[in-house]
């Protein structure tokens, strides 16, 4: 059981590679869901099964692992899109960048001033690498839905960092953060629907270039 958190965090890092290396959107959503679900197990494992940790884990599991992926999968079905074709940057270069940022995360994480208890933990590298993966997804992909996924990956990275700070956020605030995230995905889903309708069945954000100087 000692290695369980490390195992989860390594799985999270590997999922980052998978996310940026696959073109199938359905698989991407499922990977993000798996990532979120795995992460939601961390609070009770790392800080003991308190009410706070258990409720956080339950809420995060439901939202990140079930509700939000279900919303996104429904959107994919409804909009009838399967693949991210022609990303701004090819899959091989993006994977190389993920490898680089992950390596960088491990090197950089070692140099940060940390509490003794956090010195050899994988939390910081996993967090930084996931944040970088989220950013890369946001930057290199064209489809509105992949950009939403990038935002979710980024949120996952923040969630990992939050593991260092068990009690910083009161439960109410934690619930507010999760609720905001759900509503954000919901609103983004609606906007995606409208983009699809306005721009003749496409959610390529490249169409969104009418407004410029």
């Amino acid at each position, binding site marked *: 059981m000692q290695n369980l958190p490390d195992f989860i965090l390594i799985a999270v890092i590997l999922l980052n590679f998978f996310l940026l290396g696959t073109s199938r959107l359905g698989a991407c959503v499922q990977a993000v869901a798996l990532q979120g679900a795995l992460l939601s197990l961390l609070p009770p494992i790392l800080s003991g099964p308190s009410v706070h940790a258990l409720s956080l884990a339950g809420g995060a599991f439901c939202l990140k692992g079930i509700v939000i992926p279900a919303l996104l999968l429904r959107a994919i079905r409804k909009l009838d899109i399967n693949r991210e074709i022609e990303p701004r940057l090819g899959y091989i270069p993006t994977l190389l960048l993920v490898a680089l940022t992950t390596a960088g995360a491990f090197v950089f994480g070692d140099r940060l001033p940390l509490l003794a208890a956090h010195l050899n933990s994988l939390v910081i590298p996993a967090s930084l690498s996931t944040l970088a993966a989220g950013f890369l997804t946001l930057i290199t992909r064209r489809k509105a839905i992949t950009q939403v996924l990038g935002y979710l990956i980024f949120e996952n990275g923040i969630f990992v960092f939050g593991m260092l700070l068990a009690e910083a956020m009161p439960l109410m605030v934690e619930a507010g953060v999760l609720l905001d995230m759900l509503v954000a995905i919901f609103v983004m889903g609606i906007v995606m629907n409208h983009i699809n309708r306005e721009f003749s069945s496409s959610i390529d954000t490249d169409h969104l270039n009418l407004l410029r*100087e």
Partner: protein
Amino acid sequence: MLLETIILLPAAAAVLAGLVPWPRLRPLLVPAAALTHLGLVCRALAAAGPLAPAESMLGIDSLGGLTLLVVSLLYAVISLYALGYFRCHPDWDNRIFTACLLLFLSAMSLATLARHLGLLWVAVETTTLVSAPLIYYNRNKFSIEATWKYLLLCSVGIALAMLGILFIAYAGLLGHGEANIQLDHLLASARFFSVPWLRAGFVFLLVGFGTKMGLAPLHTWKPDAYGEAPGLVGGLLAGGLTSVAFLAILRAMQIMTAAGEQAIARQCLLALGVTSLLFAALFVIRQRDIKRMLAYSSVEHMGILAIGVAVGGLATYGAMFHMFNNALTKGALFLSAGNIHRHYGSKRQCEILGSLSVLPVSAGVFLAGFLAIAGSPPFAVFLSEFSILRGIFAAGHPLLSGGFILLLAVIFIGMAGTVLPVTLGPTYNETGTPGGHRETLLTAGAPLLLLLVVLAMGFYLPTPLHTLFSQAASLLEVTPS
């Protein structure tokens, strides 16, 4: 209890707006809630003192109180305009719009009263989410693009701010052994915090909330969102929401000041402020779209606020005063621009020339509002910008003050190139477009009222307001021990 009511009243009205089945009566909820809200805010401010017990989640201090007053006052006047606006479009579905409009007020109030960084974050993120449907109200290709950019950029920006909050919490954990991010607690113990984490946290907060505030180079969503949103939403975003985001940055400044890291925080803020002025000066010239022009003017004034706080001393007082003036003047400008836009069905300069002869009040307010926002006396903006300028001189930055004046002059000339033909130019179309909306008492009266307040404040600043500005400024200057 009063503070909770201030937050929950508009939210309750929003729920009611969702339930009321009559589209003609529903808009009445907005001014009803807004005016009651304003009354409650005035009561809360009058009763203020050391109201909040330490370690509470909600509380009103002079910084938050000032922002709340600005938001509530602007919102109350705009809610009257909204009544007229809904009458212009009686057949449009207004259920979601009204509900989101009311939730927007609730979320902004929560942000100003939050004494916990996490709660502040939740409130600011909620403002993004409930204002997105407001921007999309016109339902066309342009507004959907603007909404998407706004939603994604601001959400990612706010996510960065969350990271910044966590960094600050870790700075506390590492330096002080406790990761409590309640504001009073942070201010009391910030001097023990781990400096690298605190600085990193500040930068992330600045970038995150700076995106929301629209400081250049993080402003790219702003011209699109302000350009495509209905005029009243533009006014609320440019006057209310930016002030709330500014407050969030000021909270970060307070923490840095308490930690003795004020110098570096001010340098960061100054850099963003000067960049904002530069960007605004570059893009406002030959800007042919009046609402986009106002967006760049908003970038400019966010830059002025940032510079004011970054310089400190008298300039901080000026910045507090300026936040008030900017909000009301931007409200007047956006509302009158909305009237012009609605009448001509266009916001391009070439199609709305000489609007003064067709829409005397709206175009008049637009012209006078331009003079006001550019800092001409006798409007109050002149006084606040002058205070900031004097502060810059007093702090001994001759180069900065020279550049400040130069950029303001460039922006003035750039805006004049658009505003003067639009209002005073030769008339392009005598009759206006067929079916163009005329101005009514509400739609023309609301911007006029806002502008009159700014004008009156230029002649006489009531003592309670002056005290509020001074107290707010002193919160940013003094290190609480």
